[in-house]
């Protein structure tokens, strides 16, 4: 295992997160079993006090997850010199079988935590805390996800061998490569662009609709997820080419480097934020009918959908700007 400050920090952070969630799990069970808002018994008061602790802990977990995700990708990028054939994070993540699964698990946990926080927020808007059992049930459901992500990350770092030969992003994200990365890369630009813009437009439209009409949260969640997938695919299959001005450089990680003026941030931050908001808007939808949330839930849902619309629109604008400003010509007539 490679002994390195960033790796130590990441492992500590994920263990701490898992420990926190497991630590409060018994209390969550307690809440689910004995919660009764109408009662004034000491047990109920104690449960209510506990809910504050659990909310704070989960907010800390979410914030940590976000930072850890960034650190994980950066660390992978910085470790490139240690691996033969790796020149950026793509190669480092490919150095053993757990790299990409660990990354995807962490992204999934991030979205799950964002959804939980949205549900928690809606719950606290109503005096009878109608979603308490749902909330803590969800939290218990998140614990295994968190543990799985931590485990994958640990296995990834454990199995990293400094002299293992890995592929650089030009191999991993090459049309001829096996697996998903190869398939995504091999997509021809024109249909890829159509799918990209189409899905993003659908996401923006449905989010804007929900923001204005306060209905249709499920559609927003579905289109957000689809837009996320389409966006990542788009970045790999054609957007990166425009950014690097190179017909074969498909790597989604190199855009975060200083060499490319950190343009990746302008893309990824709105994308992740918008997807989190869109998914949360959908997550709230089942509770719109709850009597005490009749007013609050649609309002929150609409605000989240609005944020998602803005985020996706921003992402699309930035992407388009980057395409138009690039000196690469992939499709005749589409730049300059």
């Amino acid at each position, binding site marked *: 295992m490679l002994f390195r400050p960033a790796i130590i920090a990441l492992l500590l952070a994920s263990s701490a997160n898992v420990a926190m969630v497991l630590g409060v799990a018994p209390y969550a069970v307690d809440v689910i079993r004995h919660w009764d*808002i109408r009662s*004034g*018994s*000491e047990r109920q*008061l104690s449960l209510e006090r506990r809910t504050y602790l659990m909310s704070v802990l989960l907010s800390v977990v979410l914030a940590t997850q976000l930072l850890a995700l960034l650190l994980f990708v950066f660390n992978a990028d910085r470790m490139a010199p240690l691996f033969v054939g790796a020149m950026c994070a793509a190669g480092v993540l490919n150095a053993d079988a757990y790299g990409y699964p660990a990354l995807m698990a962490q992204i999934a946990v991030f979205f799950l935590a964002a959804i939980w926080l949205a549900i928690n927020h809606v719950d606290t808007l109503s*005096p*009878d805390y109608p979603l308490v059992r749902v909330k803590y049930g969800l939290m218990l459901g998140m614990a295994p996800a968190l543990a799985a992500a931590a485990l994958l990350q640990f296995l990834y770092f454990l199995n990293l061998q400094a002299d293992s030969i890995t592929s650089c992003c030009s191999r991993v994200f090459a049309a001829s490569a096996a697996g998903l990365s190869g398939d995504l890369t091999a997509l021809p630009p024109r249909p890829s662009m159509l799918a990209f813009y189409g899905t993003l437009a659908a996401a923006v439209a449905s989010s804007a609709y929900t923001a204005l009409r306060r209905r249709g949260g499920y559609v927003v969640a579905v289109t957000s997820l689809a837009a996320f997938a389409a966006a990542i695919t788009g970045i790999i299959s054609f957007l990166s080419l425009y950014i690097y001005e190179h017909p074969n450089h498909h790597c989604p990680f190199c855009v975060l480097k200083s060499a490319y003026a950190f343009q990746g941030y302008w893309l990824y931050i709105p994308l992740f934020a918008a997807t989190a908001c869109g998914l949360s808007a959908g997550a709230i939808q089942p509770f719109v009918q709850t009597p005490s949330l009749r007013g609050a839930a649609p309002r929150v849902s609409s605000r989240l959908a609005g944020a998602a619309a803005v985020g996706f629109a921003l992402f699309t604008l930035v992407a388009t700007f980057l395409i138009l400003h690039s000196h690469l010509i992939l499709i005749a007539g589409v730049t300059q």
Partner: protein
Amino acid sequence: MIELAGIRKAFNQGRPNEFWALNGIDLKIAPQQVTVFFGPSGSGKTTLLTVVGCLARPTTGRVRLNGRDTSGLPERFLTGIRRRTFGFIFQQFNLVRGVTAIENVMLPAYPLGSDWKELKERAGSLLDSLKLSHRRTARVEWLSGGEQQRIAIARALINDPEVLIADEPTANLDTALSKEFLGILESLAGQGRSLLLTSHDPLVVESSVVRRVVTLRDGRIVGDR
């Protein structure tokens, strides 16, 4: 109008030292009058005050505030109601040491995020009306008992509550200051506020300001005048 039905409150529930401070209280408190809870220490009058003032939830029983049931509300909402409806004057005054008088008065409004200048003006005029304008920026621990109590009153009034609650207000005052306090009470009552006091001071109980005296013993009401 505050209604209490079947209120019982326990401390250390489920443990060997379980203690029921209130043992079945049914009470209706009419607005815009001065009510005193009278009784020896241990009779539960302070606990009753906390239940009435939404400082604590009853173990069993229902509290209704202007028709709205507040006993099942979680702390966040209860506090919101309490802030708007009640102002508290504690026996020990409970001012924050090391903080100036005017800041102490402004504290209860901090969580509301209202405009600072406006809040400061309001606090200032409250202190003026209680003849404390010369003490605005003084640290509260340097002030006399009477002055501290008036700051406590100003603090209780900052959110313009309809009900003022005072716990043993004259316990730490001499006769002259007690009379002064009753004078302030009268003017507050004249403003249309409801006042709830606990006391075992005859000066208070027999004052002309007081409209109703509820006597408590062992967590139960034993007299209502």
